[in-house]
């Protein structure tokens, strides 16, 4: 300041008065101060802006960090609260379910009992117990009376003398008839057997008439103890068998006789043994000795 006033004094010592100098000095000082204020204001604002930005950035980071931390903590808190609430809710559900089940069972039993009681009362009204007892008593008494009547009727019949005699006579008659029937049946059986034997003999006699004794004996022996139907069915077959066997035996004997006669002729030795006269008589003798 002093410099500007000194400079002005030197420059304008002839032109400027003391007052003018003072005024210029004042104006100059004011202008300088104003400018200085403006500049300081601008610098301050710039500094503040820079500071604001830095602080904003730092605050942003800080807020972000705080948010993350809070979020993490809040998540943990929420998880813990959820777990706790879920557990409590489960307990509540279990308790309510148990309570409901118990109540439902109790209610069910009550309803069943009520229905049963209602049915009892309805049946009692429609069909009183007294009536049922009366009916059962009547039925039992009726059955008992029937039994007694049955028993007494038999006793009374037997107790009556005339009826007893009649019953006795009837029983004797029935017994006699039974006995007679048995005898007749036995007699009938004997006669039937005899008739069967006679028929059998007659049939065999008729069939065996004209046959030789050996065949007759064979047939009679074969059909002993056989009934007539069996004999009729098998007679021809038996006779054929006998004939066949007799023929076979005859053939064998023929061969043996022929062999023997040839041998005797070759030896030319006389024997005192009695020989059959002819071959036919020899065969007949052998056949007679044959066992059939």
């Amino acid at each position, binding site marked *: 300041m002093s410099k500007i006033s000194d400079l002005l004094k030197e420059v304008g010592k002839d032109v400027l008065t003391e007052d003018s100098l003072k005024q210029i000095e004042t104006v100059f000082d004011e202008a300088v101060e104003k400018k200085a204020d403006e500049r300081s204001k601008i610098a301050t604002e710039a500094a503040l802006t820079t500071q604001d930005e830095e602080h904003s950035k730092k605050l942003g980071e800080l807020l972000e960090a705080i948010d993350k931390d809070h979020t993490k903590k809040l998540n943990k808190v929420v998880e813990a609260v959820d777990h706790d609430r879920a557990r409590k809710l489960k307990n509540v559900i279990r308790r309510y379910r148990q309570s409901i089940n118990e109540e439902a069972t109790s209610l069910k039993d009550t309803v069943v009992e009520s229905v049963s009681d209602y049915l*009892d009362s309805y049946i009692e009204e429609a069909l009183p117990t007294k009536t*049922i*007892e009366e009916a059962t008593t009547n039925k039992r008494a009726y059955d*008992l009376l029937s039994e007694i009547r049955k028993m007494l009727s038999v006793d009374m019949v037997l107790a009556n003398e005339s009826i007893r005699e009649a019953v006795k006579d009837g029983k004797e008659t029935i017994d006699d008839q039974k006995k007679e029937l048995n005898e007749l049946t036995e007699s009938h059986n004997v006669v039937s057997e005899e008739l069967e034997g006679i028929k059998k003999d007659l049939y065999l006699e008729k069939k065996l008439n004209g046959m030789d004794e050996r065949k007759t004996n064979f047939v009679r022996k074969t059909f002993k103890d056989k009934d007539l139907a069996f004999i009729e069915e098998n007679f021809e077959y038996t006779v054929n068998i006998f004939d066949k066997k007799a023929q076979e035996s005859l053939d064998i004997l023929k061969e043996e006789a022929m062999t023997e006669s040839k041998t005797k002729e070759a030896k030319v030795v006389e024997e005192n043994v009695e020989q059959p006269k002819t071959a036919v008589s020899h065969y007949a003798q052998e056949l007679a000795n044959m066992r059939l």
Partner: protein
Amino acid sequence: MMDRNKQIKSFISNIIDKNYAVATTELKSVVENKLKQKIAKAIKKDLF
């Protein structure tokens, strides 16, 4: 007793299910059993 209660339960359940034909049969059976029980009780009493 248990059978009878079971029959009544079945009757009620059939009524709830609107299965009326079976419910009627169950009801008849219950009533019949009750009557039989009453008759059996009456028979046990002395005749004279």
